[in-house]
């Protein structure tokens, strides 16, 4: 799939080199339980902020390491239960593939520690994310992306699908100009 994308689409990035980035993503969080529940999925809202401290952009691709902070609200009450809200902190590894001057695909894997704040209980989880990014603003040292990430949050008792709409600000402290196709 990746090879096909690289073959079909010319790689492109106007800015290259080391970068830092910040992403903010509100999302819809759908909990699909592995246990018997009254509903096939419960709906919550989520919000995630991620900070990539170690990032590098080449002509074709980017990679970064960072931390993620987030929160998920309790679900809408239904029947006798609602799913609990929690806050999360995690580490993430991100990769990006430039497909056109404005369009790139990003993917991410991560692991998190999550806290049900009110009841003071903790659980671990893993996550995968993929989504398109659209460059809509840039100058000599930063880029602004509009993102549509789709995540899988793998908890022990729940698999959650998270669909978000967000923004990503990518700052290049020592930018190099890339080649135009």
């Amino acid at each position, binding site marked *: 799939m990746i090879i096909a994308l690289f073959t079909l689409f010319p790689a492109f990035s106007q800015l290259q080199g080391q970068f830092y980035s910040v992403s903010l993503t509100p999302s*819809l969080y759908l909990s699909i339980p592995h246990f018997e*529940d009254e509903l096939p999925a419960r709906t919550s809202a989520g919000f995630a902020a991620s900070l990539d401290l170690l990032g590098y952009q080449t002509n074709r691709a980017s990679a970064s390491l960072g931390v993620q902070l987030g929160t998920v609200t309790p679900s*809408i009450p*239904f029947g006798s239960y*609602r799913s609990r809200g929690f806050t999360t902190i995690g580490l993430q590894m991100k990769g990006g593939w430039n497909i056109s001057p404005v369009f790139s695909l990003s993917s991410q894997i991560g692991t998190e520690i999550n806290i049900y704040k*009110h*009841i*003071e209980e903790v659980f671990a989880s893993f996550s995968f994310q993929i989504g398109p990014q659209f460059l809509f603003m840039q100058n000599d040292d930063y880029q602004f992306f509009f993102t549509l990430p789709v995540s899988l949050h793998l908890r022990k008792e729940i698999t959650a699908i998270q669909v978000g709409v967000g923004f990503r600000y990518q700052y290049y402290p020592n930018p190099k100009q890339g080649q135009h196709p």
Partner: protein
Amino acid sequence: MRKNLPKLILLLLITTLALSSCELFWEKPIEGDVYTVTIGIDYKNNDNTNDNLAGTVTDARELFFTFDSVTSKSGRNWNGYLLVQEGDARDADTFNTSILAGSDIYPSKANLEQVLYTIKSTAKSNDLTILTYSGHGFSPTGELILAHTKTSGVISTEELKLSPTTLLTWMGEIPGKKLIILDSCYSGHFLEDSSSSLSLVYENSINDWFSQYWASEDYTIPDIFLITAAADTESWETGVAGHSHGDFTLALLKGLGWPDPHPTISNNPTSVDDLSLPRARKGSVLTVDSLYTYIKEHQINPIRSTLFWPRTRVQHPMTNGGAMDMVLFRF
């Protein structure tokens, strides 16, 4: 690729809409009746004066009235059983009370079992049963100490103990949703660890959190939810408006709508209309978590002691871990 972008976005939106908000269009279950069992024991009818408790009977009586109010405000039918041992009477008439909703029932182990059996035989799968207990918890394992039934002679504590296993078994046989609220020392022992999360109140580490992720034990929604006054410590009583309450129950009463400031006994509410909607509700629902959080925030005694901020009389309320919170009442 650009031509396909609108289709990709549309696909994402359709997927999201298809999966989201089941809560809004799924057929809502009908809420059933509410059964409450409130227990208060002052231990003044045994030979030992050191174990007397001043706030437990008022806990039970005021909770009994409060649950009547809460249930009435949520538009559900209520059946309340009040089990109290009060004063020094230890004659046969005191012990042999009828098992009738609304009348004082003597809180012996046999009577409690009979009350729960009565509820079991009438409750349905959509009903809610709430049991509250204000009394001693055995040190350090937390067993409840129920009222004795000896008109004379030595009373053995062993015979009065009610273990977590026994109570959870009796409650587990009742159809519907169940909540147990314990205001007693060491009551956290009634809670089993969740298979999907670990409490920060007890010592554990990041290794334990990830080990639990990979552990084979599956999570199921607890059949019985619990809120306990303490983890593995003692719990305490506190004086208010000329009488006593368990500190935990005082906050519980406030959260359920008992007048604030707490009135003297002679000024107690006489009608359910005198009570407000539960202050612990979040939006239009009262859940185990909202009630638990309210109690933690409003109890007088501290919930933890640290090296830099040492505190005495620490009692940390506890509840079930895991992904799900139970909805108790809607208003």
